[in-house]
């Protein structure tokens, strides 16, 4: 189920009359006039709702003699909400691009010729700045405190604060005077 199909489905279900129609169809297949009598609604109103339910794929129809019968598409209700949530979002790519743009904007604002101008006050921005500095370190390698300080000093004079914040942000781990870069999950 695509994201827009899921939205359509949820919108469709968020209506008392349509839910009552589905409840009736869960009991047995019915035609418009019967549903109208059962739910005390006019036949055109029932047809209107059935069209929406058909478009959302929750109801199917078939001809039985003179009547158009409507039945519940039980298969669609076997899909769990979690399955829908786990579907890759149509928006995912756009969101990733927006995130990348924001990250670049922060980097451009706080770095000048490879040097950090100041430590951002906002944690979200500081995290981005720290991630950039962390990239100067390799994974799977142990660094001494002096090595860490020297590399950070290439970016910013107050290497103590940066080093401490990198530990806090779990970009780095330490054991005494040994430091190593932590891989992202």
């Amino acid at each position: 189920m695509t994201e827009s199909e899921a939205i359509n489905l949820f919108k469709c279900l968020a209506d008392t009359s349509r839910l009552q129609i589905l409840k009736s169809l869960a009991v047995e297949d019915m035609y418009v006039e019967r549903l109208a009598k059962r739910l005390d609604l006019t036949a055109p109103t029932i047809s209107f709702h059935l069209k929406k339910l058909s478009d959302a794929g929750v109801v199917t129809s078939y001809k039985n003699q003179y009547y158009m019968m409507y039945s519940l598409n039980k298969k669609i209700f076997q899909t769990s909400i979690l399955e829908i949530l786990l579907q890759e979002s149509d928006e995912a790519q756009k969101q990733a691009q927006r995130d990348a743009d924001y990250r670049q904007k922060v980097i451009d604002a706080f770095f000048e010729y490879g040097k950090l101008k100041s430590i951002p006050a906002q944690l979200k921005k500081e995290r981005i700045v720290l991630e950039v500095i962390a990239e100067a370190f390799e994974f799977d390698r142990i660094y001494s405190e002096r090595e860490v300080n020297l590399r950070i000093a290439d970016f910013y004079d107050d290497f103590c604060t940066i080093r401490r914040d990198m530990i806090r942000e779990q970009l780095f781990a330490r054991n005494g005077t040994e430091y190593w870069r932590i891989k992202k999950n």
Partner: protein
Amino acid sequence: MNKKQQEFELYLDEKIAACKQRSKRLTADDRTDEGNFEKVRANVYEIFKTILSVAEKVCKEDELAKKRFFLQKIEQIPTSWTISYEKVKQHKDVEKMHIESIKLDTIQEIKDKCMQIWEETV
């Protein structure tokens, strides 16, 4: 404004109020689409309330001219709605068909009431 016009205006006001009340109740009961149908109905009544007041301004004291003006509009306005209904019917667009038929049913009701009040047949 004469007695007949007052009666007709009262009828329209009552209908508008009833539609709005039903719309509110239906929306609160999570029947948004049906609530919107009531808004469509209220809208049609409001159109004819406006026409009634325009007739009053345009025709001043001429009662016959006012009636003619109103009846002319009641025939004119639904022409495009009927065309629209036929168009959506061709495309089997049940949703739009329902909305267009609500408009046409409401205008028929207004027309019947208008005739009843002015004791005249088309």
